[in-house]
């Protein structure tokens, strides 16, 4: 809307319009008015002149530039779409193999289950330098649904098992721990900055959060691996040095900045009249913060938790370095775990392009993508609409 109004001065007709208005019966006015309706009054003519002359003039250069800019702007959209396409594409052979498990000689180059010595596939292997790791056994497993939903993940054994459940459990365990540890700290800190903090402490805390957000995840992973793991083991005396708990604590460092930032935004967006009313009724500062501000900001805080959850679920380097990477299913928090992201990170570099193991790793990636995608979408709805509605429609 605003943009259209802004455009007005660019048009040459604008100057004519000003001229016409100034001298009342300028030639411009009558000339342009004359085109359509020679007998109309001045006032009417002026209106028509505006409409006709203010029309946007067609400029080929401008037009091309605008189109070029629009096309480049589509890169982001195209990227999302192609992530969908290309990550899912590599998972498809898993599902097609289910229908015809006894594939004879599969014509596609990508599929190499059990037919590595057919000429076509041999060329395929030559194409990929990774296959030199000679994991021929890895190529023989067929990822049936039963196999995928199994409880064992051992993709490089003679009888490959692609049960992704231990990995899903591992991811959930670390993520939940990270949220359980990180969220209270982050939300309390957000409450502190938005309600109680004296100026100077805000000026220390905010940069600290920014620094924390700027820590590369490999740095956090390194810290967890060489320092945190030993300290926590000494403190709690559990058996394995690297485990889900260490991963969760380290991961909480990665989610605190996100949760803090979004939650603080939501807390600051609570209208002043609500807090002022509460204070005026005699509530203390902390009562106001805890019983008025925090409930009013619930959708934003919830969105913050979702975003933190998504970040932790997809984070790779921290869990790769700090969780021990053993694909176990157990409820214990102090046993090693292997998450989905860490599995991709650790195994993708050693896998034969196009074999079942490779496809299953892409399947893990698709699950990660879909999961974080939906989390973000839901979080966005909560931030944008709920928050706005709630504050506007009180």
């Amino acid at each position, binding site marked *: 809307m605003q943009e259209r109004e802004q455009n007005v001065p660019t048009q040459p007709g604008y100057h004519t319009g000003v001229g016409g208005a100034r001298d009342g019966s300028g030639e411009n006015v009558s000339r342009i008015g004359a085109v359509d309706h020679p007998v109309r009054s001045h006032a009417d003519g002026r209106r028509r002149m505006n409409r006709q002359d203010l029309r946007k003039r067609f400029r080929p250069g401008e037009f091309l530039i605008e189109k070029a800019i629009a096309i480049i702007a589509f890169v982001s959209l195209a990227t999302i779409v192609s*992530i969908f396409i290309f990550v899912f594409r590599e998972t498809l052979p898993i599902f097609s193999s289910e229908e015809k498990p006894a594939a004879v000689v599969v014509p596609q180059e990508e599929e190499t289950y059990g037919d590595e010595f057919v000429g076509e596939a041999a060329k395929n292997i030559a194409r990929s330098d990774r296959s030199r790791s000679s994991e021929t056994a890895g190529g023989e497993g067929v990822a049936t649904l039963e196999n995928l939903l199994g409880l064992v993940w051992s993709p490089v054994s003679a009888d490959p098992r692609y049960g992704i459940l231990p990995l899903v459990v591992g991811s959930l365990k670390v993520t939940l721990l990270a949220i359980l540890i990180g969220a209270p700290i982050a939300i309390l800190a957000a409450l502190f900055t938005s309600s109680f903090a004296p100026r100077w402490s805000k000026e220390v805390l905010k940069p600290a959060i920014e620094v924390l957000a700027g*820590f590369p995840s490999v740095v956090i992973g390194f810290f967890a691996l060489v320092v945190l793991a030993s300290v926590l083991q000494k403190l709690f005396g559990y058996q394995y040095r690297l485990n889900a708990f260490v991963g969760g604590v380290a991961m909480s460092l990665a989610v605190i900045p996100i949760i803090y930032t979004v939650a603080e935004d939501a807390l600051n967006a609570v209208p002043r009249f609500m807090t002022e009313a509460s204070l005026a009724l005699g509530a203390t500062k902390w009562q106001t*913060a805890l019983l008025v501000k925090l409930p009013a900001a619930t959708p934003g805080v919830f969105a913050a938790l979702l975003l933190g959850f998504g970040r932790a679920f*997809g984070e790779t380097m921290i869990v790769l370095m700090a969780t021990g990477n053993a694909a176990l299913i157990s409820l214990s928090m102090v046993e090693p775990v292997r998450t989905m992201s860490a599995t991709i990170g650790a195994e993708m570099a050693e896998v034969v392009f196009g074999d079942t193991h490779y496809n299953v790793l892409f399947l893990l990636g698709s699950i990660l993508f879909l999961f974080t995608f939906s989390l973000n979408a839901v979080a966005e709805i909560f931030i944008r609409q709920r928050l706005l509605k709630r504050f506007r429609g009180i």
Partner: protein
Amino acid sequence: MVVGLSALAAFLIIGVVALVMGTIVVGGKDTLTWEFLTMAPREGMTEGGIFPAIVGTALLVIIMSIAGVPVGTVTAIYLSEYASSRSVLARAIRFAVNTLAGVPAIVFGLFGLGFFVQFVGSGLDSLISGEGQLRWAQPNILWASLTMALLTLPVVIVSVEEAIKTVPQDLRAASLALGATKWQTIRKVVLPNSLTGILTGGILAVSRGAGEVAPILFTGAAYFLPHLPTSLSDQFMELGYHVYIMSTQSTNVDATTGIQYATTLVLLLLTFLLNFSAIFLRSRVRARQVQ
């Protein structure tokens, strides 16, 4: 009680940040010498420096910026200057940018492998390298940089858009009133006035790109290379990846503790420096917004 708890949480965060940084500084400062920065690894990577990793990281972020910053800037221009906020396309692009920001880094890595290496690379190979040759269809610095450029695109877009928004409407109106076309106005008025924002976006993207390891795990990073990358189809060493392999994959992890700490310290200092210059620049942009 609540006040105390929340203050405690706040100071816990500050304390942890200080602790992490302190540990890494103390652990790495003795190994961090000029020789360490300018020499290649020796003796099976248990001695020597990290020069190739520094060069590799620099090349990675340079190629990434060349590819990513212009695209991000143009997208921001489109979103803030051309597209009406209610248009379906603009909303779709905005949604895509937000989604892109939330996609896990490892998924970008998979995408880089599936799209750049396997799809574009194979296509290029069959076009120019001739049948059976393998030049582009394998991980290299170009594919890693492009993957990273896509990962950092949202960072650039958001900060450029923020800067463009602070350019006063009056300036645009004045330019348009003088007869400049829309593109002339953008090029001569809007862009020069948002240069700081573009710079901020670029710096933030570089900082993010230098710190991410997951996307390059299988799109181009290498354990060890005896020579520096000389062409876009070469693999490269990278600081973050170096930290990862030195601390988890190397044969003698304990012998290289000093190198690990010092490499981490270099990486941390690098991102720290970049982030602080970005924060400084951004505060200048925001100060203008207030005026």
